[in-house]
């Protein structure tokens, strides 16, 4: 890591809560005994903004957040293989708008479940090892990207079932890829990070014709000419340990490692050559006791706030778009002691869900200010 010149040190947020918003526990669900690894709101379809999905063990469950802290169970899917352990879930949809729940885990198969008729739509085979994260392209919700333990990131088309691109190879990750995210406005860019301590930014621009072709492919999916993208356009070694979550914040990237903080930095890419970009670290959001890997943060729809849990069962809600960083709230409950693997922030940030290692789901609602 380069020495930062004077005046360019990252701004570190303070942990004193500003109490801009207060949250209260309104519900707590116990979903079995197995750890829940992911909880995600459906931001793809505005009809279902209060619908969320969780995964744990071999089960995928769909819930709805209702008024007064009520959580209704809508659907539940169980994988026939008892040893399957889902690690991630994401919402996608078909070209005609049918909502899909996409889940994947240790078996390395991506299950695309059609939530409208409660049937499995497709299963994607191809990754050589367990899958750590799946994200959907909000601009084209039929595209999902998966990050896997087999050191590759794959782009799939849920509509036609095609594996379009594989981001791996000579310039790819050298260890498990833990997290991946689409750029919110630049449809060609994705960022991935993993156990090799790097964050890599990939561009699909040169291969976009294949992406488009995948929508109109009529032949067998396995005959599709899947391309290997071997070289990222940018790579950053910001962290010195596993990077287990990264999200785009506009053109900036929020990424976290196991050193108790989320880092906001700007990738400055050089036009032609990939290896010469620099990363400018802008801000740091400290999160105490967050030093085990596979803890992910979530943001609300407009990226105003980010919620992250730690291994003691506490949640920190940071305001993203202010400098210096402001801690909106610190949520803790006496009975919440188990590590929180992922949080989900609702559309407007008023509800925060978290899923824990002990299989519980906590729902925190913002106390309305008068």
């Amino acid at each position, binding site marked *: 890591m380069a020495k930062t010149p004077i005046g360019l040190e990252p701004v570190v947020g303070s942990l004193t809560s500003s109490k801009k918003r207060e949250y209260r526990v309104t519900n707590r669900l116990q979903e079995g005994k197995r750890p829940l690894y992911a909880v995600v709101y459906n931001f793809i379809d505005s009809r279902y903004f209060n619908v969320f999905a969780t995964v744990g063990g071999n089960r995928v469950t769909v819930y709805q957040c209702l008024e007064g802290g009520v959580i209704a169970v809508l659907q539940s899917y169980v*994988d*026939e*293989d008892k*040893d*399957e352990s889902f690690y991630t879930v994401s919402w996608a949809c078909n070209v005609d708008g049918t909502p899909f729940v996409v889940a994947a885990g*240790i*078996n*390395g*198969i991506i*299950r695309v479940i059609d939530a409208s008729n409660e049937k*499995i739509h*497709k*299963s994607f*085979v*191809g*990754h*050589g090892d367990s899958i750590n994260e799946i994200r959907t392209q909000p601009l084209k919700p039929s595209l999902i990207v998966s990050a896997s333990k087999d050191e590759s990131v794959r782009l799939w088309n849920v509509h036609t*079932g095609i*594996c379009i691109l*594989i981001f791996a190879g000579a310039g790819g990750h050298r260890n498990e890829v833990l997290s991946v995210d689409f750029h919110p406005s630049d449809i060609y860019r994705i960022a991935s990070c993993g156990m090799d301590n790097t964050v890599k930014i990939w561009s699909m621009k*040169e291969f976009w014709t294949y992406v488009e072709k995948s929508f109109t492919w*009529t*032949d*067998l*999916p*396995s*005959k*599709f*000419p*899947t*391309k*290997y993208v*071997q*070289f990222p356009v940018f790579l950053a070694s910001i962290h010195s340990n596993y990077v287990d979550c990264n999200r785009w914040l506009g053109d900036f990237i929020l990424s976290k490692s196991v050193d108790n903080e989320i880092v906001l930095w700007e990738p400055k890419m050089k036009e*032609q*050559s990939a290896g010469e970009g620099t990363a400018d670290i802008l801000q740091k959001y400290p999160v105490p006791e967050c030093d085990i890997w596979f803890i992910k943060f979530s943001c609300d729809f407009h990226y105003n706030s980010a919620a992250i849990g730690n291994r003691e069962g506490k949640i920190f809600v940071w305001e993203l778009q202010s400098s210096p960083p402001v801690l909106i709230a610190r949520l803790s409950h006496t009975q919440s002691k188990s590590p929180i693997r992922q949080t989900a922030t609702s559309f407007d940030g008023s509800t925060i869900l978290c899923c824990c290692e002990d299989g519980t789901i906590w729902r925190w609602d913002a106390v309305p200010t008068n």
Partner: protein
Amino acid sequence: MCREDSCLHLSAEEEIAAEESLSIYCKPVELYNILQRRAVRNPSFLQRCLRYKIQAKHNMRIQMSVSVSRIVNEAVLTQSLFPLYILLARVVSDVAVAEYSAVYRFRRACILTSFTGIEGSNQAQANFILPEINKLAVEAKSGSLAILLVSFANGGCCLWGRIPLESLYFSWEKSPNFSLGQRAELRLPVDMHSCLLKLTCLNEDKCILIQNLSNSLLTNQSLQLQVIISAEEVGAKEKSPYNSYTCSGISSSSLSHIIQLRAGNVIFNYRYFNNKLQRTEVTEDFSCPFCLVKCASFKGLRHHLPASHDLFNFEFWVTEEYQAVNVSVKTDSWRSEIVADGVDPKQHTFFFCSKQMRRRRQKNLVQNARHVRPVFMESKLHAGGGELLDKVHGGTILQNSRIGAVEYAQHLPSSFNVAGVSGAVGQSYSDSERIQSVSGNNLTPPALLQFAKTRKISMERSDPRNRTLLQKQQFFHSHRAQPMAMDQVMSDRDSEDEVDDDVADLEDRRMLDDFVDVTKDEKQIMHLWNSFVRKQRVLADGHIPWACEAFSKLHGRDLVKAPALIWCWRLLMIKLWNHGVLDARTMNNCNIVLEQYQKQDSDPAKG
């Protein structure tokens, strides 16, 4: 000697088939024959065999037993003679011990507890084994060996007597019985003298140090014993093979009976023609019928056969009358070493299955996918699919001859678009792309055929047995891990490790962009040339003339539109000519082609 079982009545074709199945047994014998012929001049290796044991059995030895029948002068003896020790000892000459009169070295001592012939006696004779008479001669004549008789009977004093082996040797040599191989018995008088004995251990051998006492107190008369020594040559017994299995009272009229009775004879029953027929063979001396090696015993044969002749199954059984082995062929189709005529083993599919690396997760991959009814999987999944996922080359078939000349020409269109897509799919592409590919296609087939002359078209060569195996299981592409369609599996094209043209083009452009001292036009020509060379597989110096001409024809139209590009192209041709890979005539031809394009270009403007 072979006996045939002719119970079954076979038709002519069946006879031929039967003979064929019997010939499986002959193939290993042929192989060993060849090896042995070669080994006559060039012995290859020493096979572990118990030949030394067999030979040792045939070595002759002398078995000698020593016993004492009586004491001649009984009055002299004050106490019991027994226990009496008999030793076969050797004089130690190099030990300088002054006060002792004799020092002998021996290995073991036999104890006699009584005279011979007494009933209920425990040990009345001591047995020794001596080398064969001729070998013994040297030792005996040297005078260093002797048989010692030692008794610790008389209180502090001991008695000892000595029989030199020399005398025994001479008497055996002269004995008529002995030379005929029968037992020879000698009766000798032995004088026992009183002495002082000391036993020591000297370098693993035990030593006995004897000091003669000339004690005036004792009577001068020494004890005399009569010792019986009987000896016969052994090992000679084994020479006659009839002895071990003699069964009295059997009428041995037929030859076969006698042969069964011989010790080393083993009956081999070969089962063939689906185990319906049987042929019998007998070997002697426990020798293996395939490689003719002599095993020392039936046990040795039992170990040798499964270890060395893996193609067959063996059953061993021993009865009172005979020892037999039933041989049948192993029907493991995976490991057929026998190659049928006309089939080139190099054309066979080669499977590698490593059982240790069976990963359970990968098995689930197949099973889960089956249960979930994924849309894109065509063929039924076989339960054994999990094994094949462990294969090193996931979906590819390793074959000797890959792309035939005819095929290559057909697949050129696809090489312009994407690798790994068979010709049929190309039709779904947009028309513009096809036109471009067709224009490229027209140029290359004739020239390529000239390179690919030696490549065989392998479409007709796949073994039907291997085809069925291919159809049973689900295969996956080795790079993308996407399931393979059956027609891709059965096609002869192997696309996995081919260079991806689009990506290669991209890489090429990127690489060229890195250069800072090259102009844009130069980079363009470089890129076009690199791309052309890669796709057309211009590999050798001799290909360059054709390549230049083809390149000119292919890109001529674009080149003439940009004079800077033509200039770079001409420079490149000059460079090639400098290196001697392009001849002047071809360069001239290229320029003529470019001129023609130029004329065409300018013509529409004019006319």
